[in-house]
């Protein structure tokens, strides 16, 4: 009986304790800066080096490049860039290796959709996903990208 009475005391105390639930989705949940959410992709920065495709453990990035429209430049530019969020596990490896921070993580995590097709995100969608961009991303920055660019500016 004593144990039960003690237990009743605990639940009664919790009845008046502050509640710990959050009012999501009425109040959005702020994730800490390092949170790995849906990626933001900036086509202009991408050098089509294919490193992200090679590192991705689930093979969910597909990209194609095309010759630079500017005839003076010899490099390639990105043509299509798709991430399949059906299988992306948001592991962070693509953003970790990208030498130019063309692909970076954001803190957005709402991906629910009614159809699987909607989870197939293309370059435009990823470019438009430009809020809450994470401040630290690549650990593989090329020396050229290290100078000048301030990545945290959008936050």
């Amino acid at each position, binding site marked *: 009986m004593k*144990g039960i009475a003690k237990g009743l005391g605990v639940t009664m105390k919790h009845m008046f304790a502050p509640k*710990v639930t959050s009012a999501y989705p009425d109040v959005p949940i702020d994730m800490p*800066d*390092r949170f790995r959410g849906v990626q933001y992709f900036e086509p202009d920065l991408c050098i089509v080096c294919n490193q992200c495709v090679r590192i991705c453990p689930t093979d969910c990035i597909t990209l194609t490049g095309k010759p630079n429209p500017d005839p003076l430049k010899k490099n390639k530019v990105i043509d299509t860039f798709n991430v399949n969020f059906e299988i992306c596990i948001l*592991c*962070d490896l693509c953003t*970790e290796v990208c030498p130019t921070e063309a692909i970076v993580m954001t803190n957005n995590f709402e991906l629910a959709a009614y159809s699987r097709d909607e989870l197939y995100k293309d370059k435009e969608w990823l470019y438009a996903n430009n809020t809450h961009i994470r401040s630290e991303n690549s650990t593989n920055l090329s020396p050229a990208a290290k100078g000048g660019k301030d990545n945290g500016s959008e936050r």
Partner: protein
Amino acid sequence: MAIRTEQLLLNVGPQHPSTHGVFRIVVTIDGETIVNATPVMGYLHRGTEKLAEQLTYTQIIPYTDRMDYVSAMTNNYVLCHTVEKLMQLEVPERAEFLRLIVMELQRIASHLVWWGTYLLDIGAMSPFLYAFRDRERIIHLFNELCGARLTYFYMRIGGVKWDAPEGWLDRVRAFVPTMRAQMAQYDALVSGNEIFLARMKGIGTYDAQTAIAYGLSGANLRCTGVPYDVRTHHPYSLYDRFSFRVPIAHSGDCYARYCVRIAEIHESLNILEQALDVVPDGPIMGKVPRVVRPPEGEVTASIESPRGEIGCTIVSKGKDRPYRLKFRRPSFVNLQILPKLLIGESMTNLVTILGAIDIVVGEVDG
């Protein structure tokens, strides 16, 4: 004339509230008494070990997150640790400290999940929410540290991905006394409750010999009085630097397993307290070649996960991917004793016994 009775074949699971995921037990019952039980597993089999043969070592780590999804940090660690052992890599001290801290936090979080869900199985609803509230604190700490709430992918071969953010270690330090106070509440709510004791005492009993014969580990072994804990018997990481007890119990029943796990939370808190005071500064990543390519050879390492001894064997042919990779998954091994324990018990005890083994189906099925 006697009433004709018949045995009933009952499928418990794969969709059943108390099988903790997609696990199935085919039981034959006579009234409410189980006369036969056959566990059926594999509904969550994803072939992690086979997939790993096609992935580079770094790419395998996120897959280990998903094996025992309640305790991703220890899974990360066992893989990294095994590869490091094979390559004889030095891990910087600070990285090793961070690993140890997150592993102990993970142990607490995992035991809290067990505590909550186990009591839910037994029929008490509130403990589940209390436990998850406290686990949420740990998850939030992890989220700040590595940006994920469940599949952390925090450890890398040769170190960790992130250094602790500003003030993070202090927040962990503040967490320790909070958690201790919560534990007192938990004890008041549950540990002395007569109904609860009546449900657990003397249920699912086995002795040390049986436990060893079945290869049980973790709390399932220690509840029979065998003080085997990889952390003290084959120290890895920095566990030899700290003093802590390996909690044991002697009765070998569900209640003993309960007590062992609760005591383990306290010990983890002790370890955390000691570790937080001596975290050195320094790099968080060792000198690791850009492409991890261990030498040819075979290596096995094991550590203490919240569920028992988790081991990893790698056969390397000198490539950047393993030739063969095998995990010793404690949930799977511990589950083997289930049919033996179930025979002769009632349907209600099925839930009590299965819950006390503490399985995570992701790990059972691999």
